């Protein structure tokens, strides 16, 4: 792996673009194809490519394992708590109209973004955590 100069340089060039593409897929998901799920997988793909080329140890210094494993339940928590303001306002659970009472449609747009953020966090961290777990087994 040390000697694969071309792979190392090319992946260094590609990695930031993969992350930007993942964020584009996430934030542009309301207008074009994609959304939190696809974006999370693409972002996780970026870290996994980094791990394959530079070693899992180097990747864990960028994205510590503890942080990644905390993000798995955090995403579900963000999603589930998005619905709580609407219950407090007397609406149905996960009715996003509550986020902008004057223009309910804008509230819906915001709510979709919150919910998708929960999805991207859980999907991204689950995929990376699985990759780390496989890497750990290999070292024993």
């Amino acid at each position: 792996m040390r000697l694969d100069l071309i792979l190392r340089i090319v992946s260094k060039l590609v990695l930031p673009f993969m992350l930007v593409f993942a964020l584009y897929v996430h934030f542009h998901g309301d207008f074009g194809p994609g959304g939190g799920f696809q974006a999370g997988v693409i972002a996780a793909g970026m870290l996994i490519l980094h791990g394959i080329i530079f070693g899992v140890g180097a990747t864990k210094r960028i994205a510590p394992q503890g942080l990644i494993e905390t993000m798995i339940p955090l995403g579900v928590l963000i999603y589930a708590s998005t619905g709580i303001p609407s219950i407090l306002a007397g609406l149905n659970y996960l009715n996003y109209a509550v986020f902008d009472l004057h223009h309910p449609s804008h509230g819906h747009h915001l709510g979709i973004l919150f919910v998708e953020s929960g999805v991207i966090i859980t999907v991204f961290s689950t995929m990376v955590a699985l990759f780390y777990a496989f890497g750990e087994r290999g070292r024993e």
Partner: protein
Amino acid sequence: MEVAVVAVLLTLLAVITVVIIRQRSLFGVVILAGTYSFLMASVLIALDAVDVAMTEASVGAGISTVLFLATLYLTNSREYPVPRPAAIPLFVALGVTAVLIYGTLELPRFGTADAPIHKHAAPRYLEKSVEETTVPNVVTSVLADYRGFDTLGETVVIFTAGIGVLLLLRGRRRRYSAETGDEVHENEA
């Protein structure tokens, strides 16, 4: 034109399936399965299901190929042929195929606009999505807003599956001492 493209892609899918069945090297099987996913993503693009195509390409061809390769690294990458009588599996496979084909006979023709599935809730979503959510991509508004409960469930499924696999992969690391029954921590070593 589109029919020709889909026909070529589906033929390639069938060829790859046969090659995967006959392949003994599991490394080859994993790579071919990744190719299968990419072709499937192309078929989905030809069917105008871009969101699903994106998921298939990233999950099917990307992540699962990596995880399969990681598994092969931990195990053996060659499949040992086990001699088994082929008659019963063949009978079961043919029987299931016949039942599935029988099941499709009553379905509306592929791609017809007046199929029941396009008449129930779909027109309502298509007409009202931009008005109610300002989101032009109806897939996103259905997924995250109209069917928000389903997507919450899906996220919880990913969470549960991830935690389950992590526990399975890590489970071996915590051992109990044979004499005292105390937990032996190997993680600090």
